[in-house]
């Protein structure tokens, strides 16, 4: 029976059917659900790792030890995992290994839209690009066969629309492949210069063989129709092209895109009058095809920026624009994402927003919303972990420039485990004085509540050691540590003031579970989450000063005639607005 699956669910099913036994990942949109779904199969050991480098290294170790293994991550995660990837290309595999890169054209939930297809070329490893859920499943299985036969990790490159788009998928049976025999092989797996030099030559031989495979692969298929126009395409762009041109043009649909099938491209091009190369983001295929001396229409007319869609292709390549209904722009107000009502980050950012003469280096997570109005309490966001290390750079530059400005690095709990610890180590080692704020909301929030080393639970929900952030900071050598409840504005402000007034490095840990988290019983007790009482505005006391609106809480609205209004269905009783109101007009329900 066919099932409607997202690309991510299909990848998990493909991994199951391919006999995968070890899988690892760090969550990141649009890749997160791959491991969440793999975790449902008892036959596969799966885990969240602290970061993508660790995830890939776990998969590499498992592969060398004989397991079919998988590591999944978002596009920028591959940057973090790039170090082991490039050498793994040299050592090759024992059990097959597939690295899944989920790219995000259009930046739905990312800080850039890098095209990770170049990683395949850069690391010299084969790459497959599915265009829908059924292919996502099928290609995973094919990837394992290629990986083992050609002794190489395989890059499976997805994009947001493939990851989160749903399509019908035919499920199959799991092929138990077991764990292959492990043989110690120093010349293969110990990448000393002497060994790696020999492996380096093998990679070039492997490339030649893989190119032959690509030329003969059914993943690269020609659909002959009229030969005036031929479309060369890959990934979800194939679906868009089919939507626009139907059966009126011929197609070379590429699913095996590194090495590219030069012979097949030549065969196709020789019979076509005009070739369109339709691909999302960079001219990856186009540049390769042009270098073969073939004339094509590509990024000279099709945008490299953002996602493609059938409308863009139809307008540019057919000159057709759909009939549409006009919107009335005056009747639309933007709806930017906001911190949730009761979000523990709100208290901290409210306090920070009151501080003048500070620079705040931010990080990747829900708290990046602290940069949005009305809080606007963030100066930079670069990548996972950069808050602390870039903050340290700020302090050193300010010192050199004689600028007296306090620098705060703001980072989440999961991001701290990911790559904040090394940054903090650097601050202490190099006598910096950035004040690090670790927003410990007891979960990985942004990606939809995944456990991490600080939560005390694993991906499969088993109880494990709970790693204490405070103790890590102590061990690194931080002497000033304050643990505060970020919803207690006074306590939070005292800690911030202390940090402003010290020349020593300091860590403030704001500890309160994410308001959307389904907290375990002990956590509900510890943080008294079940004792919260909603807030309400005392009409007689409200003087319409709008101070409470500065918290940017979605549960509070303002009416010029009535004053501030708290939506009872949204309020969770976090009390931030109650503490802000200068007229004590916000009270607890029932008081």
């Amino acid at each position, binding site marked *: 029976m*066919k099932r*409607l699956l997202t690309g991510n669910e299909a990848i998990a099913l493909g991994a199951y059917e391919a006999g995968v036994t070890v899988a690892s990942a760090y969550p990141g*949109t*649009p890749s*997160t*659900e791959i491991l969440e779904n793999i975790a449902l199969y008892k036959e596969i050991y799966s885990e969240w790792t602290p970061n993508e480098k660790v995830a890939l290294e776990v998969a590499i170790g498992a592969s060398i030890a004989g397991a079919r293994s998988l590591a999944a991550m978002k596009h920028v995660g591959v940057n973090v995992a790039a170090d082991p990837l490039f050498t793994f290309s040299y050592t090759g595999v024992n059990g097959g290994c597939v690295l899944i890169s989920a790219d995000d054209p259009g930046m*739905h*939930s990312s800080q850039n839209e890098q095209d990770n297809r170049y990683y395949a070329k850069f690391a010299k490893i084969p790459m497959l690009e599915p265009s*829908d859920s059924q292919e996502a499943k099928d290609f995973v299985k094919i990837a394992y066969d290629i990986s083992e036969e050609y002794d190489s990790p395989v890059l499976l490159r997805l994009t947001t*629309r493939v990851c*989160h*788009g*749903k*399509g*019908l998928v035919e499920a199959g049976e799991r092929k138990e492949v077991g764990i292959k025999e492990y043989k110690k092989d120093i010349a293969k797996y110990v990448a000393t210069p002497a060994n790696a030099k020999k492996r380096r030559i093998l990679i070039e031989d492997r490339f030649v063989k893989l190119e032959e495979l690509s030329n003969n692969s059914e993943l690269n298929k020609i659909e002959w129709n009229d030969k005036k126009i031929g479309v060369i395409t890959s990934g*979800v762009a194939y*679906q*868009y092209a*089919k*939507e626009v041109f*139907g059966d009126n043009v011929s197609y070379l649909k590429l699913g095996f895109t590194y090495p590219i099938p030069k012979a097949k491209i030549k065969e196709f091009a020789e019979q076509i009058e005009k070739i369109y190369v339709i691909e999302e983001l960079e001219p990856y295929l186009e540049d390769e095809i042009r270098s073969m001396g073939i004339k094509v229409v590509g990024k000279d007319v099709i945008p490299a920026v953002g996602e493609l*869609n*059938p*409308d863009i292709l*139809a307008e540019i390549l057919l000159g057709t624009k*759909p*009939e*549409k*209904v*006009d*919107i*009335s722009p*005056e*009747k*639309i*107000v*933007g*709806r*930017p*994402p*906001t*911190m*949730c009502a009761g979000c523990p980050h709100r208290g901290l950012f409210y306090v920070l927003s009151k501080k003048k003469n500070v620079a705040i280096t931010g990080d990747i997570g829900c708290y990046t*919303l602290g940069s*949005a*109005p*009305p809080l606007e309490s963030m100066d930079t966001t670069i990548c996972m972990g950069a808050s602390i290390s870039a903050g340290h750079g700020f302090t050193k530059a300010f010192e050199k420039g004689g600028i007296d400005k306090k620098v705060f690095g703001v980072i989440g709990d999961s991001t701290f485990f990911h790559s904040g610890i090394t940054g903090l180590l650097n601050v202490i080692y190099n006598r910096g004085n950035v004040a690090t704020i670790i927003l410990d909301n007891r979960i990985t929030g*942004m*990606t*939809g509540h995944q456990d991490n080393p600080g939560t005390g639970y694993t991906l499969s929900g088993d109880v494990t050691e709970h790693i204490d952030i405070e103790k890590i900071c102590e061990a690194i050598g931080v002497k000033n540590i304050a643990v505060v409840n970020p919803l207690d504005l006074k306590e939070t402000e005292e800690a911030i003031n202390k940090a402003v007034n010290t020349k020593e490095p300091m860590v403030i840990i704001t500890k309160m579970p994410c308001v959307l988290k389904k907290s375990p019983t002990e956590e509900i007790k510890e943080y008294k989450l079940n004792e919260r009482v909603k807030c309400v505005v005392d009409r007689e006391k409200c003087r319409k000063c*709008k101070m409470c*609106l500065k918290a*940017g*809480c*979605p549960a*509070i*609205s*303002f009416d*010029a005639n009535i004053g501030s209004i708290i939506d009872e*269905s949204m309020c969770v009783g976090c009390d931030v607005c109650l503490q802000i109101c200068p007229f004590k007009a916000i009270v607890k329900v029932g008081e």
Partner: protein
Amino acid sequence: MSDVKNVLFVGVGGQGIILASKILSKGLIDAGYDVKMSEVHGMAQRGGSVTTQIRYGKKVYSPIIGIGQADIIVSFEKMEAMRWIEYLKPSGKLVVNDYAIAPAPVLSGKVEYPKGIVEDLKDKVNTISLDAAEEAKQLGNIKTQNIIMLGALIKAMGIDEIDWESVIKEEVKDKFIDINLKAFNIGRKLVQ
């Protein structure tokens, strides 16, 4: 490709669009259609504008719906209907929940929530408006507005012959089956 129908769900994070679209797609698959569906996760869920796109027919390629291509838009919030209306075919139908959720700039008092949206939409396209939030409140659970909207959508699409009640029974938790079946029928009846 001409047989492919496009349904666009729009609204605000947390309104239950995902469940409603899941039920619709399940029913369509059971009826033998090829179905593709697209949604975007991540940032969009933090109170932002949310869409789910469903395309069905004999063979579907693109998972996303283009401008001027939707046969029907079902909007769980009225301003979201205006935001996405250019995706509707000029001859298409709009089913809109006459219900407002104020976005951040309105909450902070910077701008007012626009007035006369539903009237404006009615001037533009074939519009069916209903107050699903109020109907859901009367039914006893505001959260059932998604299934009321689904009932209205299915009636408006004219795909009443599929056994939707058994799909709903499969997709919602046991204790919510009764109220959701009631909600579904309320939605159906609200469309003539």
